[in-house]
């Protein structure tokens, strides 16, 4: 026989079951850690001690834990904002901008009323303004998509830069603190700051409440059901009498409003001011979190914690190794983990069949 059977063939797997699928995913995280260990060795460090130091840096002391959680809060919030939109297969990559707009709205009330209103009034108003502002910003591309079928990916992405541009204008112009020239907005007065609980902003509780809200919203409500149907098939949704355009617009309002809330938490609970890096990339990293958690809000808690630990741990290592291992290595590790987890989806769906015929023939 002159032709050979293909070396490897792929075949669809039978259903693995949720448990086994998650075991494969967790194994893939370890695979990423092992791959990354190779990189650490190549620059002359002991991977085990580096990993131990990373975990120590992220979780070793109450202060470290507080800082890790500070990283985790906006990240988790952003991924929760993404969840309903992505469930609907509406690719909202504008969470970054929606967070920023939420921050702008909250900051407007903080700067205007921080000396005249008590905290008990000001904070709820800031919170509401941020949610509405972020929601409307998110609705904008949804309206265009529902009415004229525009591409939401580009639209939401471009809106990010507009929102950030607006902040740049504000911090160099009308809202710049005196003396002028710093390109910075003044820090909020105490009345506009959210209180801390156990050294971490009370905004953490808002995000935890959002986790439960989003879990129930997607799972048990009529609106959550409509989102799922629209995401699976718009034709089915129309057939079932669902007003597809309205669901898209409403869902994007919810998505944007949650992002707006995150903006409020960041300006009022973490930074105590507004800057053009208010979102700091969580709108994009949040996509990774949401995706890795398979859009499950409970899963997002764990994934965002994992990424926060990596980020915080990497900055510790950077100090310990005197810059031999740069801080950006957490990004590399995150990238490797993402890569491995995505690869694991392939192994969850398919199995490989190796060439067997040659052996049969030899027998």
């Amino acid at each position, binding site marked *: 026989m002159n032709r050979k*059977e293909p070396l490897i063939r792929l075949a669809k797997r039978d*259903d693995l079951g949720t448990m086994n699928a998650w075991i494969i995913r967790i194994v893939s995280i370890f695979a990423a850690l092992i791959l990354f260990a190779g990189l650490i060795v190549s620059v002359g460090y002991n991977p085990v001690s580096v990993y131990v130091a990373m975990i120590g840096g992220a979780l070793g002391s109450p202060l470290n834990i507080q800082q890790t959680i500070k990283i985790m809060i906006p990240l988790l919030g952003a991924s929760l904002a993404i969840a309903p939109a992505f469930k609907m297969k509406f690719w909202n990559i504008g969470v970054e901008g929606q967070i920023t707009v939420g921050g702008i709205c909250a900051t407007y009330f903080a700067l205007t009323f921080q000396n005249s209103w008590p905290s008990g009034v000001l904070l709820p108003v800031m919170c509401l303004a941020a949610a509405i502002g972020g929601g409307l910003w998110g609705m904008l591309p949804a309206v265009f998509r529902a009415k004229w079928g525009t591409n939401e990916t580009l639209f939401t992405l471009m809106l990010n830069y507009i929102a950030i541009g607006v902040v740049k204008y504000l911090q160099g112009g009308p809202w710049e603190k005196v003396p002028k020239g710093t390109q910075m907005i003044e820090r909020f007065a105490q009345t506009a700051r959210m209180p801390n609980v156990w050294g971490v902003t009370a905004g953490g509780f808002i995000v935890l409440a959002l986790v439960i809200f989003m879990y129930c919203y997607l799972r048990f409500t009529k609106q959550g059901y409509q989102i799922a149907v629209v995401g699976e098939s718009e034709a089915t949704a129309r057939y079932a009498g669902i007003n597809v355009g309205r669901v898209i617009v409403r869902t994007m309002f919810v998505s944007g409003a949650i992002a707006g809330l995150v903006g409020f938490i960041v300006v009022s609970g973490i930074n105590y001011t507004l800057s053009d890096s208010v979102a700091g990339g969580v709108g994009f990293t949040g996509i990774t979190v949401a995706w890795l958690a398979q859009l499950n809000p409970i899963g997002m808690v764990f994934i965002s914690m994992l990424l926060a630990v990596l980020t915080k741990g990497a900055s510790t290592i950077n100090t310990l190794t005197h810059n031999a291992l740069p801080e950006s290595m957490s990004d590399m590790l995150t990238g490797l983990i993402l890569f491995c987890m995505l690869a694991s989806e392939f192994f969850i769906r398919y199995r490989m069949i190796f060439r067997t015929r040659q052996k049969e023939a030899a027998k």
Partner: protein
Amino acid sequence: MEKETAIRLEGITKRFGDVVANRSVSLEVYRGEILSLLGENGSGKTTLMNMISGIYFPDQGHIFVGEKEVLIRSPKDAIDLGIGMIHQHFKLVDVLTAAENIVLGLREKGKFDKKAVAARVQAISEKYGFSIDPQKKVYDMSVSEKQTVEIIKVLYRGADILILDEPTAVLTPQETEKLFAVLRAMRDDGKAIIIITHKLQEVLELSDRVSVLRKGEYIGTVSTAEATAQSLTDMMVGQATVLNIERPEPVNPQKRLSVAGLTVVDGNGVRKLSNVSFDVYGGEILGIAGISGCGQKELLESIAGLQNVQTGSIIYHTDEGSEELVGKSAMAIREKGIRLSFVPEDRLGMGLVANMDMAGNMMLRSFKRGRFGLSDRKSPEVLAEQVKDDLEVVTPSIQTPVRRMSGGNVQKVLVGREIAAEPKILMTAYAVRGLDINTSYTIYHLLNQQKEKGVAVIYVGEDLDVLLELCDRILVLCGGQVSGILNGRSATREQVGLMMTKVGGAS
């Protein structure tokens, strides 16, 4: 004359996960014959042919072309061996001409010589009796012309083993006759032809031998001359089945729906329905016949409130009064209490949500129920269990996503849900397409039950024999117009076929 083997399969097995699509199938085709591969849906016919044409690779077994064992690893290998497959869904580029499609992907030296290609296409056409204009663009072609291009495409590549996957599913009776003439000409030229089908009439008319598959297993091969519709059915189904469809007389028919002057123009300005008028009565089955794409979809969707209607009216009658449906959305129609059920053509893409389980799919009709914005998740589960038991849906549990069920069970879920809504009007589009014989009969039986309950049933179908056996009246559509309405008990195939191609039918 000694028969010469064209292709021979030995012990071919193919698994997809747990499912064995083909279990140790052996088959032999000779040059100069037409072999029908007969089997119900899901019996593994297409999988088997896909292995010959290089799309799948068998898990076990051997394939011989002529006397030599071969390994077919890709469609290219298959073409090199002279095997050509004409798929059920055409694989043509719409904006290219027939000739361009035919040479597409060929690696011939030199530049694209339109004249030479056209001449060769012409030669092939004349040899077997095709008629085709090589310079015609595919988007201007009818379904039958597209099929012709597909066939010439494989002949141009030198195929002498041709596989056709349900070639007549989309053709009118007249076009089918033409195709059969061409296939006979190719057979007489010494080519081996395999046709996949489950229409018994065609098998008996066309083929020399019939091989039957059942549930992935090879049952046997008989010579067509010795076979009858009943004997083939028994081989296919595995037991003697009654082939007659019951048709009870309509009892006390009452006007339920009147459509008048209905005109629909789509987004591109194409007129899909023009001035369609007819009435539907409770207690009858109204069949709708027509070539695919001549307005059936738009008609049903207009009634269901899913289609923008330019002019015309659709009036729903009850004892209490009448209601205009034009201008109402699907939700508005439902909220008015109009009991309209619709089994659409695209089951998983429109009637159901493929990734949801049975309960989730039952909710499509009832998700608006429930308090505090929460949807009622309990009653859909009860309904899902009920549908599962009543219609004998085969599924591991009601939590299994419907996409993992077989086609017949998917349709049972959809029909079960629509009937459970206790409709006054039940519309079905291609309700038995792709279903095996037993499930088809289950569906006919369910429709008859609804009819006896006084429901007005609209049955859009493609199999004329079924339409003629099942329906009380048959409305024939042609290019968006009503070509005529016939009495189902007295109409003939030829009558309906003519009316499908020409308004009014008279030539």
